[in-house]
């Protein structure tokens, strides 16, 4: 299984895009991502604005309003928190075609610590009107989704990682923007996931639960958090004993919240949200380690699913019991 960093795949795709689209501009905040990159004839359309994330978003809005298609570059921690007001007012309100390319998302900044982790970015971006929110899971899905985001008339937030993460299975078809991708059929337990390590954990956990527990487990890849594909979600989870979300985000506002909102409103099912815990992660570790510490692994997901299914069975067997503690 090969491994690439989604930010690197994006960088190479952008160089191509800059050549193909004469309106594409690359606005940088001295991220270093483009050091040594040769944009060729498009070199004049690469601008390093310095360490200035608010200015980055404002400049991008001004350029997009003038007909350019800016790709703005910063870390997810700064795009979604520091520069949020400029994203909200200057970009989202005006529905301008700015692509916010956010690297170091989740805990992919690892040992760099909570200042550089972004476990809130999906919540804040998803709440903004006009925003499209995309979470690629590997190199191939990054390439596929970037191509589809490129021509959107409005803004988009693309969540990228820092270090290489393993690729999805080779036979995975390219994702379609705005459509949940069924990675594994199965309707008894449905795992809904987004992001490199959560998708891989969910796929492996599904195999384990099928093989060892005889469960019929489906896996949905929800790479587009906004607009959210409610139709596929409700169709794929109709009749499920349990719906499970797996993500690299704080428990509030991300994929788990999106699924909870849609199911609660349209087709309620028992739900288990697996996410990073509601606290800052200030222990040294790489992305995989920090997620493993918090149960986002195939084994962790399988264990949580088993415990919840057992809890649900107890509830069913004990009439009058309305709620159970979270396992």
């Amino acid at each position: 299984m090969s491994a690439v960093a989604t930010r690197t795949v994006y960088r190479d795709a952008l160089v191509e895009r800059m050549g193909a689209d004469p309106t594409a501009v690359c606005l940088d905040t001295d991220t270093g991502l483009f050091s040594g990159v040769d944009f060729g004839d498009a070199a004049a359309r690469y601008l390093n604005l310095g360490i200035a994330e608010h200015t980055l978003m404002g400049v991008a809005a001004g350029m997009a309003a003038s007909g350019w298609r800016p790709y703005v570059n910063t870390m997810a921690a700064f795009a979604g928190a520091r520069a949020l007001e400029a994203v909200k007012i200057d970009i989202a309100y005006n529905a301008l075609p700015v692509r916010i390319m956010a690297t170091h998302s989740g805990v992919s900044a690892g040992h760099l610590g909570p200042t550089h982790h972004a476990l809130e970015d999906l919540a804040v971006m998803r709440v903004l009107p006009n925003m499209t929110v995309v979470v690629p899971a590997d190199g191939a899905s990054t390439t596929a989704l970037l191509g589809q985001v490129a021509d959107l008339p409005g803004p988009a937030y693309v969540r990228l990682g820092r270090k290489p993460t393993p690729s999805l299975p080779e036979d995975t078809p390219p994702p379609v923007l705005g459509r949940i991708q069924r990675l594994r059929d199965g309707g008894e337990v449905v795992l809904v996931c987004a992001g490199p390590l959560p998708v891989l954990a969910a796929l492996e956990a599904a195999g384990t639960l099928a093989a060892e527990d005889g469960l019929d487990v489906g896996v949905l890849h929800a790479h587009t958090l906004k607009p959210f594909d409610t139709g596929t979600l409700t169709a794929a989870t109709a009749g499920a004993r349990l719906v499970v979300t797996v993500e690299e985000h704080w428990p509030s506002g991300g994929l788990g919240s999106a699924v909870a909102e849609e199911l609660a409103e349209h087709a309620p099912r028992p739900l288990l949200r697996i996410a990073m815990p509601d606290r800052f992660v200030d222990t040294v570790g790489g992305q995989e380690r920090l997620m493993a510490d918090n149960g986002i692994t195939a084994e962790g997901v399988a264990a949580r699913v088993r415990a919840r299914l057992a809890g649900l069975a107890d509830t069913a067997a004990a009439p009058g019991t309305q709620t159970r503690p979270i396992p």
Partner: protein
Amino acid sequence: MTAVVGADTGPETSAETGAETGAETGAVVGTAGTEMTADGLRETALRIRRHIVDMCAGPEGGHLGGSLSSADILTVLYFSVLRCDPAAPDDPGRDVFLLSKGHGAIGLYATLAERGYLPVAELATYARPGGRLMGHPVRAVPGVEMPTGSLGHGLALGLGFALSARLAGRANRAFVLLGDGELQEGSCWESAIAAAAQGADNLVAIVDRNGLQLTGATEQISPLEPMAARWRAFNWAVREVDGHDHEALREALASAPWEPGRPSVVVASTVKGQGLAMVAGKAHSHYATLSERMHARAVRALRAGDR
């Protein structure tokens, strides 16, 4: 409101062929305002002040003092400096104006109405339910390039427009009107650094230096002096002018950029509430809801002040 840069004004147009593109898209922009006489400017500014006072007598009142302090700057910009045409508000060759001190919205509406972007009669709908003339400007209003009101946004937006023009090889400029209190927002200085670093000499900032913010003097709350020296230290070309002297404003604004490769800033010395002796120079003029009696008094004072 979005002017679309087509493939023909993409990268190929930046540098060598830019002048041709500019000629195609920019030269048609109306410059009728540049013909206005000194008397015309004075009368226009007075009408704009009258509109401001009228809007402050509306249901919600308005940002009176800061709108009056900006009135001469807006008059000179829209009637003597900006290459703009109400009939072609999206022309890619237009000069762009951004009211970074978005709370001065009523002054902008009055100016846009006088310039022909919207009917003067619409000013009576200011702050009335269902209308588009809000307390801070939004793009639904013809001539408003960007919604502003959260302070500290305009300079970055203006830099975006300026860099857009440069990349497309066009000669148009971006003008950004900043409040002086607004400069307490750090993002202004972040953008000032970036603009100088980019050598954006088609970006022109104007500071409405009335010395007052909501509750008092800027120098007592969070001092901004030495204002001109600060901008110079940020590598901007700086001129200090009387912000109520039309000819001085016109000369400074029309002649920018003054130094190749440097953005320009006009520090315009103004009086908050200028034109209305009853509030001039007073911080409490920041926001006012004028009663019928006060409105009548203000209208008389404007006329008297003009003599």
